[in-house]
């Protein structure tokens, strides 16, 4: 019942709010939700606090953009190429770090992301610190570009990606993969004793996560039409996707979506009410919220809803 209602609302949203700004907010929510859902696969279900997922976002954005700019490759093909590259990167990253536990792993992820960023910033071919402007093509779904003030086509595109990601996670949750992911999160040695190969399943989780994050990266590039290391290859990108998952509820299907709605909502509300300095204020509220949730409500918004539901019954 609830998913159906959510779907109806999501589909009707751009029809009800036909102005560019609310549509833009809708796009932001879906895009961030997609990233948070992707992060949740490793961070939430498998329990590996990967704080370098901006790498996959960046690879997605840069691969499709550079292929389009330099070789005229269609962004959809570029997106596919990006996901493949991202999954390869996930294997490399995973392979070097899967033996590491706890903090070692988290720090290794941060390190990996910083290295990739340093390489891009210092390589002129890749646009350097200046970034890459995406060439304009005719507006069409085939070209993955929609001009003008109507953001609805972008909105429906990203909503579709999000829906696919949610469906995949829904299926994974109920399969061997999902059980193994959670077992690894709960107790790696316990899982091994039951025949689970943690390295293998962490890699699978990582690759799935990389795939969806990369798709979001290509989408971002095609939507904003400009990318640079500061916007797609930066630690705040890695952090924001995990914060949404944390606030919403780790290891839950809908948690990351709720988290994205809450954080984008806060961020846009402070920007509108406080204007120029808004950027820091929204982050201050983010930070505070994360502390408060970590200390008092570690199960996130989903946990809160669960409690409310239990109280009603």
């Amino acid at each position, binding site marked *: 019942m609830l998913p159906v209602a959510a779907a109806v609302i999501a589909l009707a949203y751009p029809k009800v709010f036909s102005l560019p700004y609310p549509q833009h907010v809708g796009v932001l929510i879906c895009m961030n939700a997609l990233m948070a859902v992707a992060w949740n696969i490793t*961070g939430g279900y498998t*329990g590996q*606090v990967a704080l370098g997922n901006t790498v996959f976002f960046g690879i997605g954005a840069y691969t499709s953009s550079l292929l389009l700019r330099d070789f005229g490759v269609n962004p959809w093909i570029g997106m596919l190429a990006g996901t493949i590259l991202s999954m390869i990167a996930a294997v490399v990253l995973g392979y*070097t*770090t899967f*033996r*590491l*536990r*706890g*903090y*070692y792993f*988290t*720090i*290794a992820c*941060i*390190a*990996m992301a*910083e*290295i990739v960023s*340093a*390489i891009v*910033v*210092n390589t002129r071919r890749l646009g350097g610190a200046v970034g890459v402007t995406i060439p304009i093509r005719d507006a069409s779904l085939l070209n993955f570009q929609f001009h003008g003030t109507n953001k609805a086509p972008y909105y429906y595109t990203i909503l579709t990606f999000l829906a696919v990601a949610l469906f995949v996670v829904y299926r994974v949750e109920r399969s061997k993969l999902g059980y193994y992911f959670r077992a690894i999160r709960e107790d790696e040695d316990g899982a091994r004793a039951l025949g689970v190969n943690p390295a293998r399943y962490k890699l699978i989780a990582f690759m799935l996560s990389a795939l969806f994050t990369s798709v979001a990266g290509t989408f971002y590039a095609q939507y904003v039409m400009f990318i640079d290391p500061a916007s797609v290859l930066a*630690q705040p990108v890695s*952090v924001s996707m*995990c*914060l949404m998952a*944390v606030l919403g509820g*780790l290891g839950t299907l809908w948690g990351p979506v709720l988290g994205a709605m809450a954080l984008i909502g806060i961020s846009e509300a402070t920007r509108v009410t406080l204007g120029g*300095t808004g*950027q*820091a*204020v*929204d*982050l*201050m509220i*983010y*930070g*505070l*919220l*994360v*502390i408060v*949730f*970590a*200390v008092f409500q*570690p199960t996130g918004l989903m946990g809160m809803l669960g409690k409310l539901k239990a109280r009603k019954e």
Partner: protein
Amino acid sequence: MTFEILAQAVINGLLMGFVFALVAVGLSLILGVAQIINFAHGEFLMLGMYTAFWMWALFGLDPLVSLPISIGVLALLGVCVYKLITKRILDAPRLTQIFATFGLSIFLRSLAQFLWTPNSRMIQNSWVGDLRVALGGVYIGAPQLVAAAGAILAFGVIHWLVEKTEVGRAMMATAEDRDAAALMGINTEQMYTLAWAVGSACVGLAGGLLTTFYSVEPNIGLVFGTTASVVIALGGFGSIKGAFAAGIIVGLIQVVGGFLIGPAFKFAVVLTVYLVVVAVRPQGLLGKY
């Protein structure tokens, strides 16, 4: 000629390494005793630097004079953060601990940006600011020299505190096993508070010393915090001596790596070394397990 440039790089790296070492020792002490990595440690350093900056800008105090103030402010901050936040999540899953201090780092960084703008600020004409010592063809900046000396002194004091005093032994006992220590009559709560105070005081000192030759901006903690995490990982989590040694090594790698490959890559070189080290030795360079 090239030799002199390299020697210069090594000296600079060594001196910077002592500052990294001091920052990392603070982080390591908190991790070792209170069992938590403070991902906001870099932001603590940033606040230490701002304390020194404002003491200079508002009251004309030289950063070396205001050192006790930045040390005190940071120690107090450490105690507050422990009492208000991390004390409540001592037994929570590591995930929760990571997020709590990560949230804190975001909060402090944006608070600084909100209060003091994102601009970078530099203390002009501090006492030691323009002095330097010539050693053959190599120059040693006085601020760096003072900072290194301060770091070594602080490390000596902490080392003495931990190894030679009753309080230090109680602290280490708490680090080994909180419950056993409590049974032995050690006030573990006090030990945790002390670790947070001393660990944070380290970055108060480091911050004050850094402002004599480094500009401060809200995002400065990102690089220093990440570097400190890398340093304590290399040194073996929780080991104070390991952190100090690894800090110096990282300082050297950074400057020499930057010299060989290009200054833009100096941070990346350190991180690459970290990845290579943990790939070979998952327990870090100097860690026992």
